[in-house]
């Protein structure tokens, strides 16, 4: 497991231990990765983050069409592996969780422990930290720093 921000580590470790998730990705609503578990290639993380953020954004529009503010979560059921996606509010803004699980877990368990993860993250988030808007000239440097944090290289 790798995290860009250290306070995310303990809540995420607890979630992973309890939910038996195979892969987990926490990202901002714009797809910027905050933490990951289980991915071995940075390209996979970036692709999953971009696709996850896009799916949540598009379902939000569907929710608007049917009169909901937004959907709470979304589950893609596969034959052997399943994907759980959920957006949630934190003191650092709106984040998205993407969880891949298999027969070792169930959607009920993932939902249950994901809600606890959200509560733990909200409680652990530093309140005083400034929210920096990424500047174009810093983008590549910040991206590389995030990749180093997420993959240790």
């Amino acid at each position: 497991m790798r995290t860009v921000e250290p306070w995310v580590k303990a809540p995420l470790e607890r979630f992973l231990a309890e939910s038996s998730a195979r892969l987990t990705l926490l990202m901002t609503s714009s797809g910027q990765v905050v933490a990951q578990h289980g991915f071995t290639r940075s390209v996979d993380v970036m692709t999953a983050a971009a696709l996850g953020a896009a799916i949540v954004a598009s379902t939000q529009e569907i929710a608007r069409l049917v009169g909901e503010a937004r959907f709470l979560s979304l589950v893609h059921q596969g034959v052997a592996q399943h994907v759980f996606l959920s957006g949630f509010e934190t003191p650092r803004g709106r984040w998205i969780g993407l969880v891949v699980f298999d027969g070792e877990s169930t959607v009920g368990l993932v939902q249950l422990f994901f809600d606890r993860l959200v509560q733990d993250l909200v409680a652990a988030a530093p309140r005083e930290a400034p929210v920096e808007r990424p500047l174009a000239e810093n983008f590549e440097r910040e991206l590389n720093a995030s990749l180093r944090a997420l993959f240790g290289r």
Partner: protein
Amino acid sequence: MTNPAEMLDRLSTVRGIRGSVLVSASDGLAVVESLMAGVDGRAVAALAASLVNRLRRATECAGRREPVFLQLHAAGGTVLAAPCGAELVLVAIAGPDTNVGLARLEMLDVVGRLA
């Protein structure tokens, strides 16, 4: 009487039973529930389904037949679970004053009707 909700309501009349949930075993979600206020049906469904699934795998690995009833004692009460075919699990939350024998009979009766 074949309505699952009515069967759960009847099960809840056993003294000490705080509620019961019919759970989808494969996804850990409640299908029907009859619970007293304060009992988190979603958590009960997810955790009990996980417990029964793991017990099934354990008995299979041990070369034994499928479990038919699970009784988990805790300090403040008991969790009872009975697999209902391959897809469902009937779970009951019982207080310390429950007649577990009667609850077991009622649960197995419900399982027999639903299977």
